[in-house]
C-alpha cells in the first residue's frame, strides 16, 4: 500500500467550517494540472463507550476506544485505543462479536465522505466529516497519496514538497484557515515503515481528535 498523509482543516479564530470552504478547497484540487475526478470514497469512525450499569461510576475502561471501517478494506475493521497507542486489525465479523459481548456500545459515529482525484503520481481526496445520519459539516480533511512508494520515510521529502505546492495553491484563495497535519506517531503504535491500512486508520483517528479538540477550543 502506498503512503498517505491526512491533513485537517483548521479554521482561523472566529471563522467556521462550511460547505463554501469545502467547495473552494475542491476547486484548488481541481486546478492542479492533470487532476481528474476519480470517484467517491467513504470511511466510518465510531466512538465506543463501556456498557456500565451505572454510568456515573468512574471506570477504568478506556474512553477513547474507537473503530474505523475503510472503503478500500471492506472485510476489515480497525479498533484503536488512542491513549494506549494500540490498533487492532480484525475481520469485519469482529463487530458481530462485539455486539454479542455487549461490553461496549456505539456512542457516536462519524462518516468521512470524500471525492478522489488522480493527478499523475499523486492522488488526493477532499473529505468532509459529517455525523452518521446527518448532513452538518463537522470538518474537512484532505488525503494526499504518493503512488510510487510504500516506505513512509522515503516518501517524506516528496510529500513535503507536494505539500508546499499545495499550500501555495491554497494561499491564492485566501481562505480563513489552513491545513495541518497531526503527527500520527506510528512508531508508538509499533507499526512498520511500510505503509498499511492501519496507518490510514490511525491518521484519520488522529485528525478527527484534532478536529474535536479545535472545535472544543473554539466553542
Amino acid at each position, binding site marked *: 500500500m502506498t503512503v498517505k498523509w491526512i491533513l485537517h482543516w483548521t479554521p482561523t479564530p472566529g471563522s467556521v467550517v462550511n460547505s463554501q470552504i469545502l467547495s473552494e478547497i475542491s476547486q484548488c484540487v481541481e486546478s492542479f494540472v492533470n487532476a481528474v475526478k476519480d470517484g467517491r470514497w467513504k470511511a466510518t469512525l465510531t466512538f465506543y463507550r*463501556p*456498557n*456500565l*450499569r*451505572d454510568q456515573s*461510576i468512574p*471506570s*477504568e*475502561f*478506556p474512553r477513547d*476506544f474507537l473503530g474505523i471501517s475503510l472503503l478500500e478494506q471492506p472485510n476489515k475493521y480497525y*479498533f484503536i*485505543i488512542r491513549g*494506549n497507542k*494500540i*490498533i*487492532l*486489525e*480484525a*475481520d*469485519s*465479523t*469482529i463487530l*458481530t*462479536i462485539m455486539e*454479542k*459481548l*455487549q*461490553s*461496549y456500545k456505539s456512542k457516536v459515529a462519524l462518516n468521512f465522505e470524500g471525492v478522489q482525484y488522480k493527478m499523475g503520481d499523486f492522488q488526493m481526496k477532499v473529505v468532509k466529516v459529517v455525523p452518521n445520519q446527518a448532513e452538518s459539516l463537522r470538518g474537512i480533511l484532505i488525503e494526499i497519496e504518493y503512488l510510487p512508494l510504500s516506505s513512509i520515510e522515503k516518501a517524506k521529502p516528496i510529500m513535503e514538497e507536494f505539500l508546499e505546492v499545495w499550500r501555495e495553491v491554497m494561499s491564492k484563495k485566501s481562505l480563513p484557515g489552513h491545513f495541518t497535519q497531526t503527527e500520527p506517531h506510528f512508531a508508538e503504535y*509499533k507499526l512498520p515503515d511500510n505503509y498499511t491500512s*492501519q496507518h490510514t486508520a490511525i491518521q484519520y483517528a488522529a485528525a478527527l481528535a484534532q478536529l474535536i479538540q479545535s472545535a472544543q477550543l473554539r466553542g
Partner: protein
Amino acid sequence: MIHPGFHCHKSEAHKSPKKKSEAQSHLTPAGAGPLCRHRAAAVCLFPAPCVSSRRPSSLPLSLPSCVSRDLISSQLSHLAFLVRVISTTTPPSPCTLSLCCPVASEVRLLCDLEQAEPSWTVRHIGGAMRGAGAEQISVLVRTMVESKASKNVLRMFYLLGYKLDHELLRVGFSFHFSRGAQITVTVSSINKMLKLHATDEAVPVTPGIQLVEVTAPATAETYAEVASAVSFFCEYLAPLLHLSKPGISTGVVPTAAAAAASLMSDGGGTTL
C-alpha cells in the same frame, strides 16, 4: 464451534470428573457485574486448531491408511471419547451443532502456533439452543462467530477490561470429511500451562487421553440436515468411538483390531 465442556474417557471406561473436563480457559469481561452479561464469557486457548498432517508422538498404535480418502492417514491409539459432538459455523446465520450440556456464551482468543507466524482468531461461542426442537436432535446447537485478528488482540482485550480466565494448549490432528456436511474431526491432547503463556512447559490435563471433537458448520436453515449428517457420521464411528451427549458414558472399542476393521470398511460394513 468448539464446546467448552467435554468428557474424556479412557478405554477402561474411566469417567473423568466433569469439573476437570470443563477446564477450559475463559476471559471474563472486566468489572464482573457491570459489564458481564454471561458467566463464562471468553476463552483463551494457546494455540487453537490442529494441523491435520501432524503426528502426535504419544500415539503408539499404527493403523493402515484410512477407509476414506478424506482421511489423512494417522496414528491412533486409545482414544479419549468425546461425549460432545460439536460443530462450527460462519456468519451471517451462525449456528453450531453440539452434544453437550447447555452452557453460557464465551469468547476465546485462539493462537495457531503451527504457522511460521502465529495467527490469531477471536471466537465467540453462544449459549446452547434450547427448546423442544433442541431436545429432539442428538446434537447441541450453538452460535459461533470468528474473526481473524492481528497479534495484539490479547493486549487489546486486556485494555478493554477483559481478564484472562485460563489458557490451554491443544496439540493434535484434524481430519476433514464430506459426508452430507463438511465434518471436521480433531484428535488432540489438551495441556495446561503451569506458567502464563509458557507453551513449552505445558502438561496434559488428562495424560494419555486425547479429546476427539466432531464439528460441522451449519446455518439456521440447514442445521437440522447437518445435525443428521453429524449424527450419522458418529454412528459410523461407533465401532471406534461412541459419541453422545455429555453425562452419558461413552462406549469403548474392545480391540484395536475392531477399530482398524471399522476404519478400513466403507462405512457399509464392506471391507476394502
